[in-house]
Every structure is written in structure tokens, then in C-alpha cells.
């Protein structure tokens, strides 16, 4: 008997897509990652323990798929995709300044090592507890804390120094 229904898992697709988008920086890579995660989660559904956080479990499945995909190839970081995202925000009525800030954040995120980016996103964007993040990544909680500290500090430095633009020049503050 399945531990959860397809509908329950599919209701969480927007959350998985958001995390995947932030993690990969590209819409297509994110949707591939999400789709692969859904398939794998469905096949492995007996492994989920009823009563535990389904969303966190799905993130752990996604983590496994992501790590496997990294072993095969680096995900492509599409600058066009980033610009498109900035454009979406501008069209939504956000100011140009916000669009630039969003773009800088996305670029700075992609410059983080994968393990730090994952923790920064699980905690900061997905608001998982440190214990849940540790479980998702199958590492001790102390490792989560040190990756979080390093990731946040590095992100802060990237944002403060400005991100290199596509010609490799740095913005003058």
C-alpha cells in the first residue's frame, strides 16, 4: 500500500520547482530535476515513514538525484535564463532596481559551492529546521551549521563586491 498518494506528492511540485530553480539557476534543468525527483520518489514511496515531513523527504530524494546528476555533468548555468527571470520580475511590476538585485542574488548563489548553496536554500528559502536539513542532506547537524555559516558569509561577500557581469567586468559601486 503506498504511503502517500500521487496527488499528495504532486501538490508539492511548486515547492520542489522553486528549490530546484534556485539550486540549478535554470528553468529547464530545474524542471528536469523536479521530474526525475517525482519519478524516483514514486518508485521509492515505501521508504517514506508516515507521519514524517513529506516535503523534507522529497527534498532528500531531490538531493540524491541532484548529486547523481552532478556526477554525470555540471548543470548548465544559462545567463539567458537568468536574464529572463529578471525580466519576469520587472514585468510583474517590480522596479528595475529589484530586477537587478534579484539577478545579482541568483548569480551570487550559483557561485557558491553546491553543498553550501543547498543548505542556504533549504534553511533560508524553504525554511526547513536545521535538523530537517541535516536529514535531507544525510549529514550531521554540525555540518549543516558550518555550511550555512560559510555559505551565508560567502554570499554576503559576493553581493557586497558585486557580481561580475557577462564580460567578466566588475560593477563599480
Amino acid at each position, binding site marked *: 500500500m503506498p504511503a502517500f498518494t*500521487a496527488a499528495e*506528492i*504532486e501538490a508539492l*511540485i*511548486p*515547492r520542489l*520547482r*522553486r528549490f530546484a*530553480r*534556485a539550486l540549478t539557476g535554470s528553468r*529547464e534543468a530545474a*524542471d*528536469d530535476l*523536479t*521530474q526525475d525527483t*517525482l*519519478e524516483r*520518489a*514514486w518508485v521509492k514511496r515505501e521508504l517514506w515513514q508516515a507521519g514524517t515531513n513529506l516535503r523534507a523527504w522529497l527534498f532528500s530524494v531531490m538531493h540524491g538525484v541532484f548529486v547523481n546528476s552532478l556526477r554525470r555533468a555540471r548543470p548548465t548555468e544559462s545567463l539567458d535564463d537568468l536574464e*529572463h*527571470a529578471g*525580466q*519576469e*520580475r*520587472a*514585468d*510583474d511590476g*517590480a522596479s528595475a532596481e*529589484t530586477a537587478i*538585485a*534579484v539577478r545579482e*542574488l*541568483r548569480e551570487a548563489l550559483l557561485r557558491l559551492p553546491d553543498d553550501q548553496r543547498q543548505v*542556504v*536554500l533549504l*534553511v*533560508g*528559502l524553504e*525554511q526547513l*529546521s*536545521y535538523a530537517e536539513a541535516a536529514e535531507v542532506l544525510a549529514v550531521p547537524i*554540525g555540518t549543516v*551549521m*558550518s555550511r*550555512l*555559516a560559510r555559505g*551565508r*558569509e560567502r*554570499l*554576503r561577500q559576493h*553581493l557586497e563586491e558585486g557580481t561580475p557581469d557577462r564580460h567578466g567586468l566588475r560593477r563599480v559601486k
Partner: protein
Amino acid sequence: MTGDPVNEARLHGYVDGALNEAERAEVEVYLAAQPDDAERVRAYRAQNDALHRAFDAVLDEPHALRIGAPPRRRWRWMGGLAATFIGGAVIGALVHAMWGSQQVTAGALTIARQAALAHVAYMPEVRHPVEVQASDEQHLVAWLSKRLETPVRAPSLLSAGYRLLGGRLLPPAGEVGTAPVALFMYENAQGKRLSLLVRRETTGSGTAFRFSRDGATNVFYWIDGPLGYALAGDLGRDELSAVALTVYRQLNP
């Protein structure tokens, strides 16, 4: 405090709201005396806010993912589309359309072809891609509705990054009857254009989304009530399908 793992963890706990009241008060006392750490805490909180600003829009995007979609990517979105927007009842019909005979009615084929031809004809126009500009949208919609003898609407595709350029009237396709055909054109910030063709249909009152490819132009088309719709663009299939969903949603709120 940097470098002291216990206190560093506590600072992050403060940022993430993971502390109890006593711990929080303690950290606040500490931060009042440590402006550098207070600045870091402020920056980390700002990061969390910025992450939401950057990515929360993804939560509202139409998507085509679902469990059990066949692994071949080009079919994947189709199944998801059915599950997400059309509902289980028509999945069988859709599956039949996709993996069954593959036949489509002559009328449905024609709308895709007509949209592709119109897109290729008018899309490259720099000065006159449309007859009536979007700035005169009310007039445009009223005019096209009158000529098609049924209310038509120009959906807003701003959420997908495309703004309405305007529209034009096309000659009727032979077997459909005498009513002319409306064409709306949209453009994104990179100058990429999409054409949405709307025309009266005599066959059937509704079909699932269908896909066709005509040279470099991809087309998604469907029939909804008395009208047939075809969205044509030189876009990847996935990207175009997302916009087609936006159109469909706008027309079926």
C-alpha cells in the same frame, strides 16, 4: 563571535527564528555590543528575504510536471498538462490522441498550419507587424469580435514576459466558412514574437492541446467552444507550452 562554532550557530539560529525567548534575548544583548556581528545578522536576514523575492514567483508558474509521465521528454509535458489543467476525465482521450491513431481532423490541422504560416509571414515585420496597435486594445478587440461574429479576447501574457503588440485580420481558411480569422501578436523584451491565431471552428466543441511543428515554428492548438486557438512561435516546445497554458488559463478563468 566568528570562528566560535557554538556562538556562530546561535547567531544563525537567531536569523532563522530557531531560538527560544531566553536565547534570543541573550543574542540581542550580545549584538548591541558587537556592531560587526549585528551587521552580519542583518545581512543574513536580508538574504532570506531576497531569496523569497527572487524565487517565490516560481510557485505560481504553470508547470507540466507529474508523477508517471513517460520518460521521453517531448511527451512529458503533455501528460502533465492533462493532469494539471484538463482533469483526469480527458486523459484517456488525450492519450488516445497522442499514442493512438495520431490522426487529427482536417480542420484542426489547418489551424496549426494557418497559424504557422501567419506567424512566419508577419513575425519579421518591423514596422507593421499588426494592423491595430495594442495601445488601442479596446478597439482591436471590438473590431475582431465583430468580424469573427463572436466575442474574442486578447489574453495578457505579461506573466510569461510577453506584451501585446496588437492584432490583425486574416482571410478565412477555406473549409471553415466565411468568418475571417484574428491574429494577435506578442513580443518579449528580447524581441521574440508569438502569434495567437483565433478563428471560428465548426468541428467539435473542445479538444485537448495539440502540438505541431512547421519548419522552425512550433504551434500549440486547441478548440474551446466555438473558437479554435493556435499559439505559434519559434520557441522551444517546453517554453511555448508554458505560454499556451497561460493563454488557456486566461481564457478559462
